[in-house]
C-alpha cells in the first residue's frame, strides 16, 4: 500500500522569501507523484506531476519539485513566494494499474505568506 507524509502542517513565510514544502512517500513499487493546490472553498488544482524522465519537474505559478527515489521524497519549492500563494498544498501518489488507479493524498500543508 502507498502512503504520503507531509512533514509540516503549516508553513509561515514572508513575501518574496523562498519556501519548501516537504513530502515523503512509501511504496513498494514505482509510483507517480503529484502536487495539488487548494484555495479556500475550492477544489484541487494540479501544480505539477512526475510521471517519468527528469527528476526536476516544473509546474505552474513558478513552483518546482524534485523527485528523489533514494530518499522517497518529492519536495515542492518556490524561490520567491507571493501573497497569492497562500493556500493549502497536497502531495499525492499514484501508480498505474490496468484495473484502475487512485490518488493517495497527504494531510496537506497550509502555506501562509505574510507581508
Amino acid at each position, binding site marked *: 500500500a502507498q502512503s*504520503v507524509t507531509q512533514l509540516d502542517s503549516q508553513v509561515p513565510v514572508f513575501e518574496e522569501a523562498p519556501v519548501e514544502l516537504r513530502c515523503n512517500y512509501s511504496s513498494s513499487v514505482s509510483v*507517480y507523484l*503529484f502536487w*495539488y493546490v487548494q484555495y479556500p*472553498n*475550492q*477544489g*484541487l*488544482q*494540479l501544480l505539477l*506531476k512526475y*510521471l*517519468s524522465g527528469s527528476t526536476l519537474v516544473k509546474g505552474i505559478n513558478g513552483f518546482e519539485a524534485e523527485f528523489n527515489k533514494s530518499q522517497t521524497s518529492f519536495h515542492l519549492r518556490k524561490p520567491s513566494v507571493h501573497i497569492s500563494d497562500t493556500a493549502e498544498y*497536497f502531495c*499525492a501518489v*499514484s*501508480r*498505474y494499474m490496468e*484495473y*484502475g*488507479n*487512485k*490518488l*493517495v*493524498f*497527504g*494531510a*496537506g500543508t497550509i502555506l501562509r505568506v505574510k507581508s
Partner: protein
Amino acid sequence: DAGVTQSPTHLIKTRGQQVTLRCSPKSGHDTVSWYQQALGQGPQFIFQYYEEEERQRGNFPDRFSGHQFPNYSSELNVNALLLGDSALYLCASSGGTGPQSTEAFFGQGTRLTVV
C-alpha cells in the same frame, strides 16, 4: 473547454436522509473518481468508475454507492446519512492510457452538511 463540473455546490441534509451528488467529467475523459475531504484532512478515495462499472473502491461502507452513465457523467449516492458524512465531496476525471491516466482533474466540490 469545460473542466469537471459538480452539482450542487452546497447541500444541507438531515441525519438519516439520502443524498445524490452529480459530476460531469472534463471533455475527452472517460474515468470518474470520487473523493471525500473532511475538514482539515486530505481527500480520501471513495471509488472509481470506468465503462459504467465500479473499477476500484476505497475503504467506505456500502452506504456509499455510485453510477456512471453512457456519457461518462457520474453520481455519488449516500444513504442513511451520518453526521460524520459532512465533508467536501470531490469528483475527479481522467482519461487516456498508461501513466497519463493517473493524472486527475478535479471539480470544485460539493459541500455536504449533515445536521
